[in-house]
């Protein structure tokens, strides 16, 4: 029996490529974003081990890729790049989320906006070789409150983004009872049998 287009099918068709990204490609795109988030966490956790387990001075603790290519960290390109890609992923994949999952995804997106703003400030200072706020090295806004706590601050940021992201992903895959049976354009729902 031929499937009739649903409202969501029609909407995703109208959205073109963005619609496909939030329809047939949503699951694969979320896996890709998840891999990027994980890679970012690896950088921060390696940096944490370098500081608190290996006794590196904080400026010398540059994470995994930064250990091999220090300029990636000193130029701010690495973490600025992660922040841009994560924000782009969160924004581009938002239309595929509905209900409670969407609410949590929006929270992650909002926190990531602030996180990117902080990295934007750091990136400009590094690229122009002009530290702001009277500091000797690039610093961000909240670092003014905790000047020596940049690694901790960015662990907090990543935690605050990851928590609502994971909650959103769970409710996207396993929608809460009142939302079960809603038609979604993507293949992420694990509570409905895949159409043969």
């Amino acid at each position, binding site marked *: 029996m031929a499937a009739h287009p649903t409202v969501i099918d029609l909407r995703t068709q109208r959205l073109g490529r963005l619609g496909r990204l939030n329809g047939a490609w949503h699951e694969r795109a979320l896996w890709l974003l998840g891999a990027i988030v994980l890679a970012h*966490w690896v950088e*921060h*956790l390696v940096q*944490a*081990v370098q*500081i*608190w*387990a*290996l006794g590196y001075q904080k400026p010398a603790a540059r994470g995994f890729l930064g250990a091999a290519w220090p300029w990636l960290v000193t130029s701010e390109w690495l973490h600025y790049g992660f922040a841009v890609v994560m924000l782009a992923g969160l924004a581009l994949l938002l239309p595929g989320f509905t209900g*409670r999952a969407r609410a949590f995804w929006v929270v992650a997106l909002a926190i990531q906006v602030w996180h990117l703003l902080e990295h934007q400030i750091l990136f400009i200072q590094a690229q122009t070789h002009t530290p702001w706020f009277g500091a000797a090295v690039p610093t961000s806004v909240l670092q003014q409150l905790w000047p020596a706590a940049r690694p*901790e601050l960015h*662990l*907090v940021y*990543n*935690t605050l983004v*990851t*928590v*609502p992201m*994971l*909650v959103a992903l*769970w*409710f996207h895959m*396993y929608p*809460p*009872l*009142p939302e*079960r*049976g*809603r038609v979604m354009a993507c293949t992420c729902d*694990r*509570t*409905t049998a895949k159409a043969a």
Partner: protein
Amino acid sequence: MLAHLVTDSSVLWYPLVALGAPALIVAALTRLDRARHHRAGGGPPASAGQEVEAQPEPHGEGGGSAQARAL
């Protein structure tokens, strides 16, 4: 080395919170949903202090919530 990491800094809290907090939030909201579903669906309401019996996930053959089946 690991002991130093745990005792001399709180750094391990960040990944633990990043993994643990979502699980707690999901568990709490799912429990609330089930309790609400019980009440709305005519199931026996849980009395004060009574544990709301967790229903098996409506996965697989023959599964699906009342709402899902109705749609």
